[in-house]
């Protein structure tokens, strides 16, 4: 499978990355080179093989159902959470107007 300019433009839109005209053109052969190379995986016989879900056998833990069990990642951290926001306003994240 190979990608054309239109497909790369669609992927870039899905990834929310604006690509300029020249950037888009340059990306097409690069992505095709990589995709052609990874396609050799198709020749591997994977009959009866499950896709990997955990690299080291491990079970996902459930934390205790306690409020603020870890004070660092619990609640009450509004100012810390907003400290690096490019546009924090009135205790909220500021975003451009989204109502058309």
């Amino acid at each position, binding site marked *: 499978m190979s990608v054309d300019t239109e497909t790369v433009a669609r*992927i870039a839109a899905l990834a929310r990355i604006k690509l300029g005209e020249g950037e888009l053109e340059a990306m097409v052969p690069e992505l095709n080179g*990589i995709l052609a190379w990874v396609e050799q995986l198709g020749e591997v016989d994977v009959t009866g093989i499950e896709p990997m879900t955990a690299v080291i056998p491990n079970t996902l833990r459930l934390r205790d159902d306690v409020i603020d069990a870890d004070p660092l990642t619990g609640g009450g951290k509004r100012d810390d959470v907003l400290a690096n926001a490019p546009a924090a306003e009135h205790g909220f994240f500021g975003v451009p107007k989204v109502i058309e």
Partner: protein
Amino acid sequence: MSGLTDLGVKAIRDGVAAGEFSAVEVAEAFNANVAAASALNAFIVATPEAALDAARATDARRAKGEALGAMGGVPIGMKDLFATKGVQTSAASHILEHFKPEYESTVSQKLWDAGAGMLGKLNLDQFAMGSSNETSYFGNVINPWRKSDSNAALAPGGSSGGSSAAVSARLCPAATGTDTGGSIRQPAAFTGISGIKPTYGRCSRWGIVAFASSLDQAGPMARDVTDCAIMLEAMVGFDPKDSTSLQMPVPQWEAGLSPNLKGKRVGVPREYRMDGMDEDVAKSWDQGIAWLKDAGAEIVDISLPHTRYALPAYYIVAPAEASSNLARYDGVRYGLRDLPEGAGLQDMYAATRAAGFGAEVKRRILIGTYVLSAGFYDAYYTQAQKVRTLISLDFKNAFESCDVILAPTAPTAAFALGENTEDPLAMYLNDVFAVPASLAGLPAMSVPAGLNRDGLPLGLQIIGNMFDEQGVLNAGLALEQAAGFSARPEKWW
């Protein structure tokens, strides 16, 4: 005392504890080396005061007769992928350029708790995506090593290129690295130092800027195996804040170090001996086999039949996870925001990410988005994850007949800056020997084995079974003692 900067982790820790010199003297000596080495561009931010503060605290504890900790008095470099409270954590990207975390990563906190101090934040490939440190927004790191007949600037390896250059140039006795597909081992090999990636889950990923979460592991980079064992012990341990953290006790790796490999079986994978292999790399591998045999090990021929599919599987799995992880950079919560005149929310996202990510990061996000998109997911991503299972099974079968595996770390010695930047695939091939162990989550380390025809260091890689860091370190120690590697880059910076 310039001699202090020639000391490693163990020598500094023991010397400070014995009162041979103070932690402040050590910190001052390394701070001076960092300040004088801007030509290497190894540090993005230097934090001499943080190093001195930690050193003063260590000296004060010693004065009171208190225990100094496993890293007491040792100043280290911190890869700029670890969140450090109040200190810029950029991942070498523009999008996080002014990001100052309100919290500390688990691994860095453990190191500070063990008595280490921070000399600064080390340069890396942007978001750890690269094998030469040429994708950093803050410029290339220069390898302190040069070919014997040329002054051309060489790559320090990547992604932990600032870490490798700084340790090799004696700007710090040790540094943190992270390894997603070879990012500790390959730069260690390129600069004549040691580095170990532990079993996936040993080091908490909490507070490490995420690249590919099923692969990312932190580990130490230092000038010898013992220093790696000491520092690794201080970095690992169960962390409830990382859902994949291993709930296991921390082994005493330093105490368990032994170069005697009597009764151990060392596997040599035949698929790693590739056509057109660099002659010096092949020679150093053969030498390594002979050394481990001399150390008492039995050498076993093994097969890892899916080796050639590891890299292509990695370049589906890692970009797929990256495209998901890097979705968080949206210009809203932290980092850069680019808001063109009159732009709406969607335009703001796209403009911010266009301005904030470098070319290689964009390339990988696009590949990842494509292989996860509707209609292609099974053909690419599911197939790659099945191949990953097969690669893991290859290792499982191999460890039936051997205890550790010996292989080269990288296919060549350090290459020139710019040599591989035109062709992304040529760059990716650097990690051909490193990626299989990453895909299987196994512990693996690189130790310096000697110099090639150009006077550049070559590394040998030891891969161990899951949880067997001790076996890896011990085989590494046997190689180290046999190699007697004492070469160091001539100071030109």
